[in-house]
């Protein structure tokens, strides 16, 4: 017979809340990239305004974690689940902030046609979408093998970023009049690279929840 039913229900609600926040973050990120691709300033503005919802969720979920710790005094895996929820909230909120930055860039570049290296840039989000989606699965399933596999994709993103960097430097040398957009694209690449890092961090959290061991998948 299961006991502490209320506590277990609250723990489940917390996990559902994180997944809900994850789904909203993923959507914001995907839409921000789509808006950038299509020069869609209206959608970009909508994403910027909508970020407040994700920020609010982060505060609510952190509060829920604090209440669970104070009132239920969780131990062992339950404690790790809650500690990891706090950490995942932080990563998701940072990813959503990055989506806002992508959207601001779309607004700033309104009316400009994109420079050639944007093709290289757009290879990055295609990989990072999958990383974020899969890291949310791993958050719940605690599949440590899958967590490691996702972190391997982070290296691919890092390689793309380095390649974008090189291409942009070359392009800006050749087109000094496009330096402003060149730098904006470079910063976008940096945003995508940071989002990939946050998904790796979510995977590390899943490994900690599953095993109690702190590992750094980035250098694994």
């Amino acid at each position, binding site marked *: 017979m299961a006991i*502490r039913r209320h*506590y277990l229900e609250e723990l489940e609600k917390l996990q559902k809340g994180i997944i809900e926040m994850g789904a909203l973050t993923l959507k914001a990120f995907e839409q921000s990239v789509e808006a950038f691709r299509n020069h869609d300033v209206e959608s970009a503005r909508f994403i910027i305004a909508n970020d407040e919802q994700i920020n609010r969720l982060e505060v609510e979920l952190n509060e829920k974690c604090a209440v669970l710790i104070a009132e239920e005094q969780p131990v*062992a895996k339950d404690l790790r689940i809650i500690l990891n929820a706090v950490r995942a909230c932080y990563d998701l909120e940072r990813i959503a902030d990055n989506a806002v930055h992508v959207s601001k860039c779309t607004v700033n570049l309104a009316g400009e046609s994109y420079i050639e290296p944007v093709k290289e840039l757009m290879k990055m989000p295609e990989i990072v979408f999958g990383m974020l989606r899969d890291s949310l699965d791993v958050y719940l399933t605690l599949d440590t093998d899958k967590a490691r596999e996702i972190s391997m994709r982070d290296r691919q993103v890092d390689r793309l970023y380095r390649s974008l960097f090189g291409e942009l430097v070359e392009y800006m040398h050749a087109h000094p009049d496009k330096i402003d957009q060149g730098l904006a694209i470079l910063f976008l690449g940096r945003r995508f690279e940071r989002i990939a890092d946050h998904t790796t961090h979510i995977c590390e959290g899943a490994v900690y929840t599953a095993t109690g061991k702190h590992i750094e998948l980035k250098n694994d």
Partner: protein
Amino acid sequence: MAVEETERMNDLKLRTENLNLYYGGLHALKEISIDIFKNRVTAFIGPSGCGKSSFLKTINRMNDLVPIAKVEGDVFYDGINIYKEYDVTELRKRIGMVFQKPNPFPMSVYDNIAYGPRVHGITKKSALNETVEKSLKAAVLWDEVSDRLHEPALGLSGGQQQRLCIARVLAVEPDVILMDEPTSALDPISTAKIEDLIYELKKEYTIVIVTHNMQQAARISDTTAFFLIGEIVEMGKTDQIFLKPRDKRTEDYISGRFG
């Protein structure tokens, strides 16, 4: 023997080997083989009836008082087999016990503390005065009762009575203190005082505590053992038990999923 192992053996205070306890037909403790180290707090947790209090009583032979109790296996205290080579009175002087409910004798505060030393032959007034003061101070009770030493102990609050019982144990200069749910009848402030006291006492004594309060075990003990139906499921450093228990049954019990 490696240096580390030698040091470990030097710190060994109590050891049980294949300890079994029967109450008539009931097999209350099954093959318990554990080590308890000096100047540490070792906590025993587990559901009611799992054998943790019975185990505590085997350590100072309290089960000798139960006619149907039968002990098999060995308990070593400082390397000496207490069931074969130890005088029971001397053993209980060395290994004192504090119970769940404070049980002061119906006499004055002073006489409660002086009782044990008197039984062990100390009659000189100055020596007794010194022991009473020292014991009450060690139990962090002196400041509260120094002006009412000759008033009835039963007039003290529950928390004070329990610290008096601890002082009474300290008065006979024990080496090990066994505590059987010492704060279960106390309010949170009295509980906190006893927990602080336990933390201080472990510098001088070895403490073994049975508690139903898992947060208490987590707060005050260095080592925790989880008992279930007469067996030890898992014993380890308290941090490990409460963060990364190895056994699913331990995890379920400390997480409150046991039912």
